[in-house]
């Protein structure tokens, strides 16, 4: 069974989620083809092999230097029609989701988007995907014949161990569309900077009375930064003037539902709980082992947050290569 994996590039390097897709591809099929589109892609091709591709189809052209819907969809759909892989995978990034939707439309194939579990059942893809703000899981399957498409949620699948010695066939193809046939032109690009909004954040590091003052938020901010998360606060810290109201989580602040909520020096009164109890994983860090927050948390560390937070930050920095 042949599986295509679109290897998404960011500044010439594959994104880690594409490696996860390769890992899954190896489990689902026996021939894995990595698709690398861009400009100056040789390093990416090598990485694709290292993380599990048997073959790589590459297209190296100025018109592909940055992802755009039309040229990428035309190219991918054309390749899928030509080679008829059983399955086409990509990471469920904004680009990946667009691209596979477009290609599935051209090919007339079924698409399962942003899945957290994926398997084969009688030759057809079956997936589990969170819906309704993550409150509920939907179990879906492809029913149509022909190539089947799926985009994979970030970090839902394991990243395979790379093998730098792996290599394979490289097929070079030309872009399907000439530049002047492409309507969309990218005028400018700005890298992501600035704070993540509390309501949208997947990860929140929050602190309360325990930080003792505005400077006490420094280790909280440091951890949030390493994790790419937002900073939250309990009402006590906001009322005391240590951090602005827009960071307040709770009954009279924001209600959040992140994947991870780290509550440092927060006792966990019901007003605060009202704002964060639906977080997927709650970590409580507090000097007081009887603090109510521990009843809500999945993991807890009893101790001084000024000792624990920097150590956590350091460990994450190492493990996340930051």
């Amino acid at each position, binding site marked *: 069974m042949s599986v295509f994996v679109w290897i998404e590039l*960011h500044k010439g390097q594959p994104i880690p989620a594409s490696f996860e897709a390769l890992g899954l591809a190896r489990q689902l099929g026996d021939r894995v083809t990595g698709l690398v589109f861009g400009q100056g892609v040789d390093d990416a091709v090598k990485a694709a092999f290292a993380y599990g591709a048997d073959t790589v189809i590459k297209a190296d052209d100025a018109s592909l230097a940055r992802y*755009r819907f*039309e040229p990428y969809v035309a190219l991918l759909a054309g390749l899928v029609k030509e080679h008829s892989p059983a399955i086409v995978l990509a990471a469920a*990034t*904004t680009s990946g*989701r*667009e691209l*596979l*939707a*477009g290609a*599935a439309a*051209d090919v*007339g194939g*079924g*698409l*399962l*988007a*942003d899945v957290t579990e994926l398997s084969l059942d009688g030759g057809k893809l*079956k997936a589990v*995907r969170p*819906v*309704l*703000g993550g*409150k*509920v*899981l*939907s*179990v879906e*399957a492809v*029913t*149509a014949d022909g190539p089947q498409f799926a985009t994979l949620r970030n*970090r*839902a699948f394991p990243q395979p161990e790379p093998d730098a010695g792996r290599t394979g066939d490289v097929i070079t193809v030309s872009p399907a569309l000439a530049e002047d046939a492409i*309507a*969309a*032109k990218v*005028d*400018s*690009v*700005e*890298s*992501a*900077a600035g704070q993540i909004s509390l309501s949208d954040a997947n*990860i929140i590091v929050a602190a309360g009375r325990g930080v003792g003052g505005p400077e006490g938020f420094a280790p909280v901010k440091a951890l949030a930064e390493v994790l790419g998360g937002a900073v939250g606060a309990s009402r006590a810290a906001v009322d005391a003037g240590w951090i602005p109201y827009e960071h307040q989580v709770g009954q009279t602040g924001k209600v959040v539902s992140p994947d*991870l909520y780290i509550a440092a020096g927060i006792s966990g009164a019901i007003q605060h709980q009202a704002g964060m109890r639906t977080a*997927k994983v709650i*970590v409580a860090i507090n000097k007081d*082992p009887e603090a109510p927050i*521990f009843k809500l948390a*999945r*993991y*807890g*560390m009893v101790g001084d947050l000024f000792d*624990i937070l920097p*150590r956590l930050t*350091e*460990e*994450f920095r190492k*493990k*996340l290569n930051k």
Partner: protein
Amino acid sequence: MHVAVITNCTPDTAAAVAIDSGGNLKFDDKLVVNPWDEYAITEAILLKEAHSGQVSIITLGGPEHEEALKHGLAIGCDQAIRIWDDALQGWDSLAYASAVAAAITKLGGVDLVIFGKELPDIASEAHIFQTARRLGWSPLGFVAKIEAIDPAARTIRVRRQVESGTETVTSRLPAVISVIKDINEPKYPTFIGIRKAAKASIPVWKLADLGLDAAAVAPKTRRLAYQDLPKREGAVEIIDDPAALVDKLLEDKVI
């Protein structure tokens, strides 16, 4: 200038949901207008005001989705259309896209199609890009701002929000865009609009009206069931070593 907004009602994400033994979804409250679509409707009305154009608002679904159409009319859309056919039961993004694209073609003269970023109960935006593909139009997803639009010169320039940052992209009309939160401040229905919406009779276009047969909208995927999230385990696990906590969190895939 003619703008079309595609909308649906969705379950209120704040409401409690439950799954019955048959794997069906049950929720207490009624459906609400998809909150993402508020931005789409408002953006269309802003364009109408700036370019003295017209706005059509379209849904694909059963009568429960007419609430979203009436909401659009009450904010200032000029006409509303519901697409429905028995052959369209069950969600499939490509089936949806094919029918919507046919409706846009039937309307004729549409310069821009605007979707809200996604449907919360579907948790996907594939239908948006597939609609664009079926129409053969340029899609621009995740638009944070329409910087310029020139119906005469047939150009549009937008700022899009992607993971790595923002892109400014110029493309051609007609186009399909999806808009994200905070592109605008959603408008309220006006009382005059409410009166108009209450009196409106909304036509229903079936597949035959769209020039499609059932094969053209045959679904490619199927929902088998809904499932609850795995239950939260009981007691807290106290950990002594930060490194061990980091490992656990990475394993739990919450980072």
